[in-house]
């Protein structure tokens, strides 16, 4: 079984669940447009490697599996960022190339590329064209919910469960790349009041968990 397929399984499981719930193997196979036997075999091998835990047809990440999946996705984004921002390649080609290289790249290359792309926080790839969602627990990325009052940052990405929430946030200006400052927090589970551009906007606790901010960017 090729290690690339196993890594593809990991990254796609991450896309489907963000590590928050188990993924059905048949759904994973459909999502990856591969046969169910092929994917079931790869997932079983991942289970033997200790990267996923199997429960019938459901697979969930182990801690090390989740880290590995995030690492692969980070490599993808760092490489894509390098190809687009440094080499000036178009997004589509860069994305396809990065998809190949994410399996080959060493940790050292990735860190150096992070510096080249202008991001000196080696665990933070917010300089990527498409910032990845794996930065929740590392570096300076925090959800708006977690941010302390008066902290400033730049929105890195949105990850709402309900698409209409994401649409609403976008239409109000919560889009990656915009500066944001938390002005007030009514209570730990109350709304957050933020300064966004020239607007002051209140976002409730649940929605504030959907906004990832690169603090201090």
């Amino acid at each position, binding site marked *: 079984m090729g290690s690339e397929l196993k890594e593809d399984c990991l990254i796609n499981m991450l*896309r489907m669940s963000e590590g928050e719930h188990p993924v059905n193997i048949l759904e994973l196979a459909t999502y990856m447009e591969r046969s169910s036997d092929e994917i079931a075999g790869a997932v079983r091998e991942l289970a033997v490697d200790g990267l996923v835990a199997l429960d019938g047809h459901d697979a969930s990440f182990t801690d090390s599996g989740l880290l590995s999946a995030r690492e692969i996705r980070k490599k993808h984004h760092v490489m894509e960022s390098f190809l687009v921002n440094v080499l000036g390649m178009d997004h589509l080609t860069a994305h396809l190339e990065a998809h190949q290289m994410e399996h080959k790249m060493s940790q050292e290359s990735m860190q150096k590329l992070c510096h080249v792309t202008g991001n000196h926080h080696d665990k933070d790839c917010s300089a990527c064209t498409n910032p990845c969602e794996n930065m929740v627990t590392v570096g300076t990325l925090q959800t708006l919910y977690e941010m302390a009052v008066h902290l400033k940052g730049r929105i890195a990405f949105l990850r709402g469960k309900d698409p209409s929430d994401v649409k609403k946030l976008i239409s*109000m200006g919560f889009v990656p790349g915009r500066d944001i400052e938390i002005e007030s927090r009514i209570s730990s589970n109350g*709304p957050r009041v933020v300064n966004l551009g020239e607007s002051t906007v209140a976002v409730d606790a649940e929605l504030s968990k959907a906004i990832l901010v690169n603090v201090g960017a």
Partner: protein
Amino acid sequence: MQSATRVVLLGQPNVGKSALFSRMTGVGVISSNYAGTTVEFEESVVTHNGCLIEVRDLPGTYSLSKNSPDEDVVIQMLRESDYDSVVVVADSTNLSGSLVLCFEVLELGLPTVLALNKYDAGCKKFDFDIDRLSELLDIPVIPVSAKTSNGVDELLDTLCEGRARVSGFRVNYSEVIEKSISTLSDAFVSDRFSGYGSAVKALEGNNDFLPTQDLAEAVSGIRSMLTQMGNEPPEITIGRERFALSDSISRQVLAKTQRPMTRKERFSEMTIEPLTGIPILALVFATMFLVIIYVGAFLDEVVSTVYDYVLGDFLSSLAEGSDPFVASIINGINGSISAILCLVIPYIMVFYLMLSLLEDSGYIPRIVVLLDSVMHRFGLHGGAAIPILVGIGCNVPAIMATRTIRTRRERLIVSSLIIMVVPCSAQISIIMGITGKYAGIPYALGIFVMLVALGCIIGVLLNKYLTKSPSNLAMELPEMTVPHVRNILFKTWERIKDFFLIAFPLLVIGSIVIELLLTYDILNYVVEPFSFITVTMLGLPAVCIVCFIVGILRKEMAVGMLVILLGENFFELMTPAQFVVFGVVMATYVPCLASMTVLWREMGARDTALILGTSCVMALMLGTLTHLLFSLF
């Protein structure tokens, strides 16, 4: 006949569209300093220098993405109605936010003018380069101030001269998005919208602008591909690039002026800090309540004394010397004038003055933020506080205001609360003017406490029964401003004039009929069949059924009827306990006919019947329970 230039006003919430509409047309519409005042469109025709302009004011929308029912109204209007040009109303104090909506309109290929509203306020914060903005957007940009009328004539001139134009402006999205747009755009051209704009909207997940829904499947495939490639849905990529450009344009055309923080801004900050915001909120609510109680009682005294001196005593003496038929008519008129004046001016007018003050100051959204956590306990978000607050004035606009709430489940909870436990201003005046005045203020306060407790119980039960997490709150907080006396008075008059124009004639007719029934001793036959409810269950005089029935027409008529039915000395014929029972029933039983009609329209027959039935049963149970409690002690 000269054909009119048809114009629609489009803009984000709280940019001042309704105020600008009023300035352009001279037609007064209610505008406030918070998002969501307009939930339906208003229209009017204005003649400017011999040119006829038909103006439509649409509800505020952050985007054309169909996120709530009121945004649906905007999209439907843009798709289906006839218009020659779109005036995008932008907020000068928040240009980059407003520009994003303007980009969407320009992409759709609609002839557009940008009206830069609140220009006077904007100039205090920025120096504007209007020519550069017009050049970048490729459309006329007119600075206006709806507050002072500055620039409104120039805007009307621009529209009359047909200078609204289809812009060549493009955001220039990333290559992969642009490629997808060009793949789709040829097939998406329609009579009204450009293929480019329709394709962008489709990629954002809004198929409303497609010429035919057969194309939806193709769009879905491309959206999936873009999501896979970009690791994010295309609407995020598109939104990000739009905002990046709007921020960039804002930087090019605005220069920030240096100034220290004003006192208003400092106070504004205090209202949303937990340490200061919550005490301020408590103070605001307590002030409102005390003003309604004490100022209301004082005005009640003044109005009734002045009325008796000027007209009341004269009409009474006139009635005494007349034959029974004429006396009935005179008494009917006298009782209705007295009831409506003593009800509307002291309580309803005072409440609306206070509400208008809060609305125009921009404090309402702060209340929403502060109450958000509390509202979550009832399966609602803080935004639901707005319809509930409006409902304390009148249930009709309150139920309409639930349109700003996204899910039907939450609309049902809020509508139920409004109908069952939120007393409208007429009900407040009954509680204060009847129960408070004749049984004692503590009993009136007791009814309010009972309503709050009932609201909590109903809210918790509905939340439990209709299980689902509440939708989320994201709300712009406007700057706090000093309200304008003119707008406060205008809004108050707009809201109370129906009491004089609609309720008063009905009350006069009803009063005369009741007086005649009393005079000729027919009333007993009417009220007798209901005496089990009124007398046995509630312990009230049998004639009170008439108050409950006419109260369905207009709540405020119930008090007038009580005066007519029992005479001006009615307070001597009823015990304090009966006034409390009367107040409890009036506060909780079915709403007025207008509220029922709106509820029916908004929530459908089944839910309306369910809410009204529950409300009726609850009122009877509470009234009976109150009667029994007083019988025991």
